[in-house]
């Protein structure tokens, strides 16, 4: 297999073509376009109920130039299992990829995802994480970050935004011990390309988790999508790593942690957040940062936090970074 390495080597032969109905600045469309470029023509796509199915497959048109199937919301792990079994029996060489949203992965689709991962099905599962049920109008999901406004975590007089922290889906998937799992950012292209290529080349259950900023859902400017994705990594809201045959490896380490407010201030969904909530989110982020990147270098942002209040990041014992 030829290594693509950089964005310049990307094939121009698009499998997800323009004409789709995504909002301008949609991070999910950017991710799908590039994933499909790398996967190429020998690919079979399953898309569950989500923004993606609505923007890409409205009869009688399609933005996918590959075979495509849709049936329901919660069954990406299962339908892709069936497709792969059939194609293997028919002797077809094809990457079977499920392109699911965070709702279809973290929440309603978690069971089917777990089943497929546990059976080590030979499929590529991509979670396009825009941190909410966007297709149905921006409702909270298990992927929505702490503090964020959504239509079901409204900013009320008594309760403001989501009170729970984002579920760690990568840790959940990694606990199934799959051949490959990686987190991706649309702002870090070389890393993005390498991970998709690696996932494509491997056999068995592969999981890619992409942060895909959503303009209406995040109340952001359509020109800022990639910048927000970049800031997510620089503030620690998103971490780039991969788990390969049980070993976790950081693939990109920011030089120093930027304060989370740099990330929050570009998004209307966080506009209401008060100092106490921001501090709580920052604390959580610091714990996550030290877990991923080690705590030899104390981050100035974290040093400002009250001593002794450092919270434990969940799964600290389970993930071992090498």
């Amino acid at each position: 297999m030829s290594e693509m390495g950089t964005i310049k080597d990307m094939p121009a032969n698009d499998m997800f073509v323009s004409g789709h109905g995504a909002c301008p600045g949609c991070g999910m469309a950017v991710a799908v376009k590039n994933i499909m470029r790398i996967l190429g023509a020998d690919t079979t796509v399953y898309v569950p109920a989500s923004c993606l199915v609505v923007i890409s497959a409205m009869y009688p048109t399609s933005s996918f130039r590959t075979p495509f199937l849709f049936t329901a919301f919660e069954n990406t792990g299962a339908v892709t299992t069936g497709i792969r079994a059939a194609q293997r029996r028919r002797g077809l060489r094809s990457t079977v990829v499920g392109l699911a949203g965070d709702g279809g992965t973290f929440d309603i689709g978690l069971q089917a995802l777990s089943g497929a991962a546990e059976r080590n099905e030979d499929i590529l599962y991509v979670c396009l994480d825009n941190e909410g049920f966007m297709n149905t109008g921006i409702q909270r999901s298990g992927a929505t970050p702490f503090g964020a406004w959504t239509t079901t975590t409204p900013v009320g007089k008594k309760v403001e935004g989501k009170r729970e922290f984002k579920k760690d889906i990568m840790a959940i998937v990694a606990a199934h011990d799959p051949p490959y799992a990686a987190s991706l950012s649309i702002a870090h292209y070389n890393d993005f390309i390498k991970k998709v290529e690696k996932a494509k080349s491997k056999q068995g259950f592969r999981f890619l988790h992409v942060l895909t900023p959503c303009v209406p859902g995040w109340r952001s400017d359509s020109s800022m999508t990639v910048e927000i994705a970049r800031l997510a990594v620089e503030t620690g809201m998103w971490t780039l790593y991969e788990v390969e045959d049980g070993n976790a490896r950081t693939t990109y380490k920011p030089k120093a942690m930027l304060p989370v407010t740099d990330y929050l201030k570009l998004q209307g969904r966080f506009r209401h957040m008060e100092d106490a909530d921001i501090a709580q989110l920052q604390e959580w982020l610091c714990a996550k940062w030290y877990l991923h990147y080690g705590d030899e270098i104390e981050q100035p942002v974290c040093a400002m936090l009250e001593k002794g209040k450092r919270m434990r990041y969940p799964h600290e014992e389970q993930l071992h970074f090498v």
Partner: protein
Amino acid sequence: MSVKVISGDHAVAYAAKLARTEVVPAFPITPQTLIVERLAEFINDGELDADFIPADSEHSAMSIAIGASAGGVRAFTATSSQGLALMHEMLYAVPQCRLPIVMANVNRSLGAAAGIWVEHNDSMAERDSGWLQVYVEDNQEALDATLMAFRLAEDRRVLLPVMVCLDGFILSHTVERVEVPGQEEVDRFLPRFEPCTVLDPAEPKLINPIVPPEYAMEMRYQLDRAVDRSREVIAEVDAGFGKAFGRSYGGLLDTYRLEDADFALLTLGTATGLARAAVDELRSEGKRAGLIKLRFMRPFPFQGLREKAEGLKALGVLDRSVSFNGGGPVYTEVAAALCNVPTIVTGHVAGIGGRDIAPDHMREMFALVERAARGERVRPVTWHGLRGEME
């Protein structure tokens, strides 16, 4: 051909094996378990070349079957009751995608007042899903109907999923003498599966996109017509099966001593055997009783029923499930079919939640239908075997 003494569940498993099923996604539920356990054994013993996929749920089992069928291979699964209900969402995707999946549903009561015993309220709830539904009377028919189901489902004029329904425990866990056809005979009857639309990168196709109102209604109409047209193919497949194996079942429905009958009962599933005995008894007493055995609930034989009911003064309909406040689903369907003919239709609910249908209940039903045939007024719907009085 070999003769075996096997349960209804095993009869179904033999049929799925003889059909050379290629993908078997499965999730266990009593009384379906014997089917998938037997198939797992066939596969692990190397007697059947298929993928057994232990799904995380019935919802996933049907989703896997959908993926496999759209991927171009023969898929079979089996379930029951709560499992079928959990599949509900996925069931509706299959007919409109024209995927010829075959599934056995071992009838068991669904919902609270929970039990594992026979009732038809699980599969009857899916009668508007677009699946063809056949109900069988004994273990031989369970095997034969399953084999025919593949041929019917995959016929290019049909391309619809088929649900083979068999009564829990009464068939599933009871052994009977069953003639198991040889593989070569079955191969002649059931050709290799040639899928119509396949997910293949060599020929990319979009299956089941979102369909706006400008197109969806026509698609639903086409599906309605396809279900209706399957009637002819059912008759054809049944006749072909008769030629190949020496057994045929009348297609959509069968009759017993109906020719000169004044009154008759319509049954489906295992209650039919009991009804046959009751008819014989009544005949020996000089009464002109007859029987209609409904095999297919979908497609429903509206026309066939009208023809068979000609000359009948009254027809009782036995339901093993309730459509609350309206009798049973078979009763309402039969009443609709016969609304423009003089035959009086009465509803009879029995065997709910696994309650035995005793010979006495059968006599009671026939007695009511006979009274209706004589012009007496009887209740539109009667529950038989209730412990206590109907109000």
